[in-house]
């Protein structure tokens, strides 16, 4: 069974990446707290920025991966693509939870409110519900082929939805800080802060890849030959 060995190798590589990512995360904390100056107006709460923004980036990246893998699945019908989409969705759900919890933690001291119905916040909530719905649908379907096709459709429609919701950001007046790094003109963040942010984004991306690889590898190990359990599970 070279397949199983292959899957095990993927999973263990994923675990190594996670270990590296966690060490990097400790480094990010040190870098952010010790070697990056405190923002003048927001004070210490601004440090959450170095976790919040990378988490949001990872959630969005994970969702793009789900959408792309879903579209490829409907085209190629390779079960590995379905498993990859599932791994990315589960990881994305975790990052979107990090994003949704760190945001209010920053918002309370800086804005004076945990939550506001700002377009960007609504957008993150929609992203979270997309992941949640995707996961719930998967768990409610017994037949693996049906589950793969159905969740691929949700993944694709979700990918279509994301740019739409992003558009609305420009229609609302917003409390959320405007983009300071990815914008048409040059980044307006001081170099020291930008450096910490970029390191953190890198570390979070390594973590994302590690989580997806581990989950994918473990899934491959469990699935083995995919069609074996098929038939008889669906009641009708």
């Amino acid at each position, binding site marked *: 069974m070279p397949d199983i060995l292959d899957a095990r190798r993927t999973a263990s590589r994923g675990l190594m990446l996670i270990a590296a990512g966690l060490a990097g995360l400790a480094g990010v904390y040190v870098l952010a707290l010790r070697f990056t100056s405190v923002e003048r107006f927001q004070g210490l709460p601004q440090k959450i920025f170095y976790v919040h923004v990378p988490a949001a980036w990872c959630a969005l990246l994970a969702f793009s991966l789900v959408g792309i893998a879903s579209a490829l699945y*409907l085209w190629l019908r390779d079960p590995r693509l379905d498993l990859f989409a599932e791994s990315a969705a589960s990881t994305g759900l975790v990052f979107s939870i990090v994003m949704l919890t760190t945001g209010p933690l920053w918002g309370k001291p800086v804005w004076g409110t945990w939550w506001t119905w700002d377009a960007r916040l*609504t957008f993150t909530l*929609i*992203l979270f*519900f*997309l992941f*949640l*719905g995707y996961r*719930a*649908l998967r768990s*409610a*379907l017994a037949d693996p082929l*049906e589950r793969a*096709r*159905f969740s*691929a*459709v*949700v993944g*694709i*429609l*979700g990918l*279509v*939805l994301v740019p*739409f*919701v992003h*558009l*609305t950001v420009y*229609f609302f007046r917003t409390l959320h800080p405007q983009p300071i790094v990815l914008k048409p003109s040059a980044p307006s963040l001081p170099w020291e802060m930008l450096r910490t942010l970029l390191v953190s984004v890198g570390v979070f991306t390594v973590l994302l890849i590690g989580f997806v690889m581990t989950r994918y590898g473990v899934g491959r190990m469990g699935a083995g030959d995919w069609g074996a359990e098929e038939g008889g599970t669906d009641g*009708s």
Partner: protein
Amino acid sequence: MAEFFRVALAVLAKDLRVEHRSRTAMVSALSFAVLTLVIFNFARDAAALSREAMAPSVLWITFAFSGVVALNRSFALERENAALDGLLMAPVSRGALFLGKYLANLAFVFAVEAVALPLFIVFFGVDIGGVVGGVILVTVLATAGFVAVGTVFAAMTVRTRLAELMLPLLLLPFLLPPVTWAVQATARLLSGRPASEIAGWVRLLGLYDLVFLTACLLVFPSLMDE
């Protein structure tokens, strides 16, 4: 192409005939709409909150939820006696099946809205005389979009356990954007703001309809192949 629309219309006619004979979807959706309107009316503190301030949200909560109730019925119908398998055995395009089911769902939701809107005017005493055209336009555009996605999702959730719970959860992220745009447009219409303030929302709703109707037509066939 003519064949495509003929099949779609046949599916639509079938659904309308079934509904005409049983009236289950209409009655459940309508009683839901009336219940919502009545609860909101009694929940409102007349001294603290004007009718106009609350009206757009009440209207859209009623529309969105009765829409979901109607959508839940659409494929539950096909599930009984394996009617869907019969439809799928017919040598017709899956896209046409989608279009037929979509038009039937749209007809249900529009019918519910057509009854709920006058009820809303009566119960809430909101004067929409001058902007009735605008309110209808916004309603039609918002409904057309979320019903397209809802039709695709209803076809999937009917195959799951707890279908009635799964559809709202899955539809929620897709329902939020058009409903938030529609509710903002409606609020501006009811408070007599100039049309230029509403044009952006209307365009966005139209774009949403176009993009999602196309996307749904493209993905629906892959739900149905075995």
